[in-house]
């Protein structure tokens, strides 16, 4: 029996789609059978981030309305064995699907796949309700900014109200150089405020933009720090105990120098 995990955030643009594409690819590379569902109806994105935009025939609305079988709508990623995408509909809106249909869809996919990752739209309305309906657990993505953490807090409350307890936090776009000089909230600060478990930390990395340009998830790039972070997160999702990345490699020059000289940098 597979597991359904929703990736959500409240605020838009914090990295949900990037996370789904990378973790999904990572799980497939670990030999798992994975379906990624884009529930951002009207604003589909996951297809282009994965580089699969030219292969779409049917979409999620076609599936729930019975125009095609689920299998027909799943796009098989030829690069990564075991990875499938169920794209969002682009010309419909969020009300084209209801939570009951999502639960049915998830239950069907659960029979055959190890992981079903759901890319949630921004907001707390219908799209959010659809995305979380069939989920067993939730990952909340945030960035170290006041507005994003505030929205994460609200989402955590809503998830718990919907019986999705103990959501795990992913802090994206962290810049250790800024944290070091006191211009960005640290992971500890954020965890402290939100009082949730940490799933992982992904540094801000220009390789994410480059990989998105190409439609090749950064997790396949061995030189990308964000890719390394996502590889660790994928392993944690399967239950492995992987220590946090040492993001200090990313720290500023002065910090590195101090470290070299053996000075305490706190």
């Amino acid at each position: 029996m597979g597991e359904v995990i929703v990736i959500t955030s409240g605020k838009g643009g914090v990295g949900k789609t990037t996370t789904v594409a990378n973790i999904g690819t990572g799980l497939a590379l670990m030999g798992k059978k994975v379906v990624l569902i884009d529930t951002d109806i009207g604003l589909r994105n996951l297809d282009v981030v994965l580089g699969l935009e030219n292969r779409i025939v049917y979409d999620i609305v076609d599936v729930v309305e019975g125009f095609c079988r689920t299998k027909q709508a799943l796009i098989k990623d030829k690069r990564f064995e075991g990875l499938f995408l169920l794209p969002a509909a682009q010309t419909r809106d969020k009300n084209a699907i209801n939570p009951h249909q999502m639960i049915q869809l998830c239950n069907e996919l659960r029979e055959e796949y190890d992981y079903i990752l759901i890319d949630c739209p921004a907001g707390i309305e219908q799209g959010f309700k659809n995305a979380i309906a069939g989920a067993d657990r939730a990952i909340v993505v945030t960035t170290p900014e006041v507005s994003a953490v505030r929205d994460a807090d609200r989402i955590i409350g809503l998830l718990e109200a919907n019986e999705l307890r103990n959501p795990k936090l992913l802090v994206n776009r962290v810049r250790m150089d800024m944290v070091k000089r006191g211009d960005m909230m640290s992971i500890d600060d954020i965890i402290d405020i939100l009082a949730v478990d940490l799933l992982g930390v992904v540094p801000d990395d220009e390789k994410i933009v480059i990989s998105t340009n190409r439609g090749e998830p950064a997790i396949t790039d061995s030189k990308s720090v964000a890719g390394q972070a996502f590889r660790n997160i994928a392993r944690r999702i399967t239950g492995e105990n992987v220590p946090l990345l040492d993001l200090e490699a990313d720290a500023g020059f002065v910090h590195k120098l101090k470290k070299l000289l053996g000075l305490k940098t706190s």
Partner: protein
Amino acid sequence: MILDLSKLFKKTKNSKDVAKERLKLVLIHDRANVSPQFLEMVKSEIIKVITNYMEIDEDSLDIQLTRTKSDDGSGVVPALVANIPIKNVKSSGR
């Protein structure tokens, strides 16, 4: 006297400390889930009770949900803070 050196050199607060402060405050409001109508209700009830004993300046009365250090100093707890300017204490209240 203890001299805090960091204060000498640090003219302004770190922006991350400002962010934390603001975030904590905004979350108290969000989590408490109180509406302005709720605060208005509390306010009018408080006015009703207090005016039995003293004359207050109703227009400058201010009530806010905020946060404060807990008594044992171990954490931060929500607090209802009311600023109620008193004009006159009624003699019957003494």
